[in-house]
């Protein structure tokens, strides 16, 4: 890989794509697979759940997603305590999925906001166990710093509640997190459409994670492509250095040589 390839580093791995996608909520596995392909994502999240004992010989998710091609990111969705989240992560690793974990410790079923106390505890425990921890958190800079200090390889502040499609509700907090973080900042949750993703990258975020934004779109394949382009555009714009915002106009054309017909 070229040194100036602008790679995203997470733990011991490096990635070209700054878009991470989920595998949930798709109408079919075939659409899911194609959407992931079009998104250009290299990391995909999976959930860890009970095997259906009555479904002998039925196809599994990993028949549709090649674990050799993608970095699997098991999540601890639905875990409300650090204990549940840690056990889920350990199971995911033992299943041979990954030692990356998208760590969720949920505080409340309606908002799905994180329980940050449990989240920080689970982060510490899983870092001790050798996991590459990517914690889903809120947009509080204090919590983000604690997660970084606990050894998380990145912090993943939500833009808005999971699946809400509201986009970035608090860009100011996000900017504070970005200013202080020494690890990558990846916006996770609440992205609704392409501009939301572009804005995240323009602000200086290192990546975006989304699931519903693509899977729930009327045309998930088209939206996957849109998101791929948006993340790319946002990143390029960020690196290009935007013009400042001004209250008044500054003409783009010269004053010299203007005709005088008075």
């Amino acid at each position, binding site marked *: 890989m070229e040194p100036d390839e602008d790679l995203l580093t997470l733990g011991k791995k490096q990635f070209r794509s700054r878009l991470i996608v989920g595998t949930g909520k798709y109408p079919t596995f075939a659409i899911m697979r194609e959407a992931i392909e079009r998104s250009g994502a290299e990391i995909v999240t999976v*959930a*860890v759940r009970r095997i259906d*004992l009555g479904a*002998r*010989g039925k196809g599994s998710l990993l028949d549709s997603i090649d674990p050799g091609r993608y970095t699997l990111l098991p999540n601890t969705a639905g875990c409300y305590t650090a204990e549940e989240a840690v056990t889920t992560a*350990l*199971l995911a*690793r033992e*299943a041979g999925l990954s030692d990356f974990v998208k760590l969720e410790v949920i505080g409340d079923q309606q908002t799905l906001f994180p329980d940050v106390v449990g989240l920080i505890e689970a982060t510490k425990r899983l870092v001790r166990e050798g996991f590459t921890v990517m914690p889903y958190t809120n947009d509080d800079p204090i919590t983000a710093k604690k997660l970084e200090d606990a050894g998380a390889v990145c912090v993943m502040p939500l833009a808005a509640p999971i699946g809400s499609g509201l986009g970035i509700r608090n860009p100011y907090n996000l900017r504070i997190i970005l200013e202080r973080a020494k690890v990558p900042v990846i916006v996770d949750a609440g992205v609704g459409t392409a501009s939301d993703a572009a804005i995240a990258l323009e602000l200086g975020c290192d990546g975006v994670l989304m*699931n519903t934004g693509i899977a729930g779109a009327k045309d998930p394949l088209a939206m996957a492509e849109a998101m791929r382009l948006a993340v790319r555009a946002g990143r390029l714009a960020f690196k290009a250095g935007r013009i400042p915002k001004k209250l008044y106009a500054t003409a783009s054309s010269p004053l010299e040589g203007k005709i005088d017909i008075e």
Partner: protein
Amino acid sequence: MQVRINGKPQEVRDGLSIAGLLAELGLDTRYAAVALNGEVVRRSDHPAVIVKEGDRIEIVHAVAGGA
């Protein structure tokens, strides 16, 4: 003997190991993991760990999910 597998009571043979149980259930275990009474069992220990009466067993795998 009676055990609980994934929350449901099941009758299984005495003296079965975790590996034996998985084989009898006919499950695709390529990417599966097992917890016994709340503790994760290493894959390498599956043949050695014996299931006992009243054990609670969770057998999980990866499914589609975002958050």
